[in-house]
C-alpha cells in the first residue's frame, strides 16, 4: 500500500514539475531579461512535454492494467482506482500546460 500512495502522488507531482518548467521557460523567454529565444523555449517545452506525457501515459496504462487485475472487494482497490484516475487527470493537465506554446505564435499573442 505504501507503493500505491506513492503512485497516486507520482503523476500529479510530475505535472507540477512540468508546470514549473513551462512557466520558467515562458518567463525566461518573455520577461525583460530575455534569457532564451522563443524558439528555444518552444523546442524545450515540446521535448519536456513529450517526455512527461510518455511517462504519465505509461503510468496510466500500468494503472489501468492493475485496476483490471484488482478484484472489486480487494481492500486496496480504492487506491488502485485513485492511481489510474490521477494519472488520467494529470495527462490531460500536461497538455493544458502546453496549450500556450502550441497555439500562440509569440509572447504577445
Amino acid at each position, binding site marked *: *500500500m505504501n507503493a500505491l500512495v506513492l503512485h497516486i502522488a507520482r503523476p500529479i507531482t510530475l505535472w*507540477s514539475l512540468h508546470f514549473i518548467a513551462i512557466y520558467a521557460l*515562458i518567463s525566461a523567454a518573455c520577461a525583460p531579461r530575455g534569457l532564451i529565444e522563443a524558439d528555444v523555449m518552444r523546442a524545450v517545452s515540446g521535448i519536456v512535454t513529450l517526455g512527461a506525457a510518455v511517462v504519465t501515459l505509461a503510468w496510466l496504462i500500468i494503472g489501468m492494467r492493475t485496476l483490471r487485475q484488482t478484484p472489486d472487494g480487494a481492500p486496496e482497490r480504492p*487506491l488502485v482506482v485513485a492511481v489510474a484516475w490521477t494519472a488520467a487527470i494529470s495527462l490531460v493537465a500536461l497538455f*493544458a500546460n502546453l496549450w500556450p506554446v502550441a497555439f500562440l505564435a509569440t509572447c504577445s499573442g
Partner: protein
Amino acid sequence: MTDAPFDPTPAPPPRRDAYDVAPKGEPEKDFEEVWATPQGARVLSSVSHRVVGKRFLITGFIFFLIAGVLALLVRLQLIVPENTFLDSETYNQFFTMHGTIMMFLFAIPMLEGFAVYLIPLMIGARDLVFPRLGAFGYYCYLFGGIIVLSSFIFDAAPAGGWFMYVPLSTSQYTEGLSADFWLIGITLAEIASVTAAVEIIAAILCSRAPGMSLTKMPILMWYLLVTAFMIAIGFPPLIIGSILLEAERLLGLPFFDPTLGGDPLLWQHLFWLFGHPEVYIIFLPAAGMVATMLPVFVGKPLFGYGFAVAAVVTMGFLSFGLWAHHMFATGLPIMSLSLFSAASTMVAIPTGVQIFCFIATLTLGRPRLTIPMYFILGFLFIFVLGGLTGVMLAAVPFNLQAHDSYFVVAHLHYVLIGGFVFPMFGALYYWVPHFTGRMMSERLGKWAFWLMFSGFNLAFFMMHLTGLRGMPRRIATYPEGIGWDRLNMLSTVGAFILAAGIAVFIWDFFRHQRAGPKAGRDPWGAATLEWLYRPVTPGYNFRAIPEIRSREPLWDQPELTEGPAAEIEGALRECPDHRRETLGCDPVSGAPLQILRLPHPTWTPLISAFGLAVLFAATLASVYWLSAVGGLIALAGLTGWVWEPSDSGVVRNTGIRDGLELPVNVVARGGHLHVGTVGTLLILYALFASLLFAGLYLWNTQPVFAQATERPARMFALLAFGLSVAMFALSWMTGRAAILGSGQGLILILNGLLALVVGAVAATFALALLPVDPWSTAFAAVGWAMGAFVAALLAVTFYWAVFNALRKLVGAQLEGQGLPDLLLGSFGKATAAMGVVTALAFLFAGTPQ
C-alpha cells in the same frame, strides 16, 4: 496488505528498568479524571481537541457575524446611487475588513475548528497528537484577530483591500498604522493556520485506530489531509509577502519599489500564490463534509471513494498552478496568460469528478431530505453555478472585461458561500447534536435554508449582471442612471434576506439548547466513529480504542453498536501510568506502531501565544523594548513546553491482539513527532522557496537592477557553502545516532559540534552579506531577507542543539531516548540545505562593483 506487522526500525531494545515510569503521570487520578477538562478559570489551560475545536468554531462564527454585519453595511451604502450613508474612508474600511475577516478569521479558523474537533473522533484517537500546538494556534488566532479588530477602536482600520496591493499599502500612500494592523494581526493569526496544518497531517497519518488503513479512513480525512498540505505550501508565500511589506513600511527596504528595482507585481504574485490555493483550502474541507454527510442520508457508502481521492489529490496540486489568473489585466505576456488560463480550466475536471461522485451517491439509495441535506442540495446548485462562471473567467478575453467588476464579486461569492458557507451550515446542523446533545429544529432549519438560499441568489445572481453592465468592484458610490440602480437595490434586499436566514439559525441554536429534543446515540444513523458514543460524550473520546475493519464501522461492525460504547473492546483500556495516551499507527497501513503519550492541561500554549502577541502588538506600536519582552516570554513558554522529560523507551501492553506490546513514543521516522517535524519543514521550505522565487523574479524582470547589485563577499560565501555542507553532515549523523540509539557521550559531542558549526555558518553568512547594502536595490534586499531567514533557522538549530545537550546533562533525556536528536537532525539537515542554496545564490548573484 493491511496490518503488515510493524517492522521495528533499528530502535534499541528498550530498557524497562531505567524508564519504567511516566514522568508526568498523575497517579492519584483514574482514567476519567485524567481526561477530565479542568474547571473554572483553569479551562484556559485545557488542551483537549474538543475544547479547542469548539473555541475555534465559536470564535470563527463570531467573526463571521462581524464580517457579515460589515457586508450588510456595505450593501446598505450601495442600495441607491450616490448614497451618503457611509463616507468613502469608512466604506473602504468596511469592505477591506469584510474580506479580511471572512477569509482569514472566519473561513480558515472555522475549517480548523471542524478539523480539530472531528479528526480524533473520526479516526479513533483520544486527542490530536499535538494538543498543545492546537491550543497555541487557537490563542495566536484569537490574539491576531483581536489586533486586527482593535484597529477600529484606534480609528486605523485597514482600508487598502483584503489584497493589500502595493504601492497603495506602502507607507507613502497609506500613512499611519492601518496597514500595519493588517499585516501584523493577520500574520499572527496565520500562525494558527500553519500549526493546524502540521497538527492535521501528523494526527491523520499517525494516530488512527488499529486497522484503519488509508483506504478505511473516512473520506473527510483525505480532504483534510490534502488541505493541510496545501496550507503548508500555500500560506508561506503570503507570510513572506507580509513580512517583506512590513519591512518595507518599517525599515524602508525597497522590495516593491520600482525606482529601486522592486516590482509591485511581486507582491501580487506572492499574494495570489497564497490567495488562489486559499480558495481551495476553504472549499475542500467543506466538500469533504458534504462527502461525509451525503452517504448518511442516502444510507449507502459514498460512490467512488477512489475517484474522490484522486480528485482531491489532483485538485490540491492543480490549484497551485493558477494564481496568475487574478493578474490577467496586469500586462503579463499573453503567453503566460494563456498558460494560467489553460491551467485554470483544468480544475474543472477534478471538481466535476467530485460533483458527479456526489450525484451518483444519490442514486444508491433513497435520500432523506433532512436539514443538512437541504444545505447539500443548496451547495450543489450554487457551487456548480459558481464553478461554471469560474470557467468563464478563465477565458482571458472575457476576464479582461469581467475582472474587478461585480461579475467577479458574484462568482467568488457563489464559490465561497456555495462551496463553504452552505456546507458549513449543513455541517453545523449535522454535528450540533454532537456538541450540545440536542437536535435543532427541522421547521426552523427549513426557514433558515430557504431564506439563505433565496436571499443569496437574489443578492448575488444580480451581481453577474451588474458586473457585465460595467460596474467595477470596491466603489463606495456610483452615479445614477448608469444601469446599476435596480440591480444594486435587489442585491441589497437579497443580502438582508440571507442575513435573516442566518438569524433564524442563531435563534434556533440558542433555542435548541433548552428546548431541543435530546439526541440519541448516532441520531442520523451515521457510519463514522464520532457517533460511537451517545452525545454529549464523556470527557474522553474512547474508553478503549476499537479495532477497525471497515470504512463504515458503525454500519459494518455490529460489535460497536450492540453494547454500551464504554464497554467496547479495544486498545489501551488500562491506564497504568495515569497518563493521557492514545494509539499511534503506521502512516499508511494503520497498523499499531506505538503508544502516544499526550500532554495534560498546561499553561505553556497560552503563555507562548501571549508572549508572541505582545511581541507583535509592541512592534505595531513601535515599543521595541516591549517586543523584546514579548519575545522572551514566548521563548520561556516554548522552552517550558518542550522541556518535559522524555517518555520514550518504555513498552506497554495495548490490550489488543493477544497482548500486543508497543513502545511509547517510538524513535522512528514514522513516529508522530518526526512526521510533524517533516510537516514543519515543508512550511519552512515553502517560506524559503517564496524568497527564492522573489529573488529569481526580480532577477528576471529587473535585469538592470540585478546587475547593479553588489555581489556578496565571495570568500565568505564559499566558506558558508562549505560549512553548510559540514552542518548537513553533522545533522545527518545526529539523526542517525539517535535512531541507532548511540551512547549519550557521542550524541552530546554531536550536539556540541552542531552548535559550533551553526555559529560558524551564521558568522560567514553575515560576513558575506556585509558589503551588500540592502537599501540599494530590491534585489539586494531580497538577498538580505534570505540571509535573515537562514539566520533565524540557524538560531533555532543552535538553541535546539544546546537545549538537547542541557537536557542530557540534567537527566531529562536518558540514553536511548533519542527522539529529540532525531528531530534536531532532520531540522538541521533542512536548515543546512537551505544554507547551501543561499550560499550558492550569494556566489553568483549580483556583480562585484
